[in-house]
């Protein structure tokens, strides 16, 4: 079985400061990891993924995430947050050996960036 934990319901950060959204996971095999963002009244938008290779993954809108196998973490980061980054962020994992690629989503973290 696979699972994802996003330990923070909400993250508050001032505009221009670094933003970090935490995610830890559990899978039986090798993980495929994803981050999505959801703006109000919209569907989820894909930000980035880790499949293999370099532990630091760069994605859309200046976001990046660092895969840490020993800590089973995949934290999302942005060096300088914008007010427009305020949204709901979801981490998701799937086991690379799963037969059909079911994604397990975390509960989501609300990011609030204040001017």
């Amino acid at each position, binding site marked *: 079985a696979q699972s994802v934990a996003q330990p923070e319901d909400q993250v508050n950060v001032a505009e221009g400061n670094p933003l970090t959204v935490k995610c830890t996971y559990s899978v039986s095999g090798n993980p495929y990891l994803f981050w999505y963002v959801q703006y109000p009244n919209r569907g989820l938008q894909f930000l980035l993924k880790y499949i293999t290779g370099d532990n630091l993954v760069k994605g859309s809108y200046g976001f990046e995430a660092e895969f840490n196998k020993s800590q089973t973490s995949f934290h999302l980061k942005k060096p300088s947050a914008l007010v427009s980054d305020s949204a709901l962020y979801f981490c998701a994992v799937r086991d690379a050996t799963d037969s*059909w690629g079911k*994604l397990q989503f975390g509960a989501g973290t609300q990011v609030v960036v204040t001017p």
Partner: protein
Amino acid sequence: GAGVSQSPSNKVTEKGKDVELRCDPISGHTALYWYRQSLGQGLEFLIYFQGNSAPDKSGLPSDRFSAERTGGSVSTLTIQRTQQEDSAVYLCASSFMPGQGSNQPQHFGDGTRLSIL
């Protein structure tokens, strides 16, 4: 269109009525997924289609819920005898060639906001 399209975007209906939600996936995407999202909550998996077949229906909450997919494209999610607890946003996603080893992300529509009075 270029993305996943869902209709209607909003649906208000009376308790006990049947509703049908539609999802038009990205062209060429063989996999299609339905999720339910209650207000401000995470995603609840409902059902997955590979082509026209549904290998995993484990998330459907009751026998009032059913889904089909025809021609490997459009899917409809039907809720019969709706209850107030069915009120939620229903999201559809599609992806290209899932299965063992696939690393393709899912692409989401904007959802149908269902309100049961």
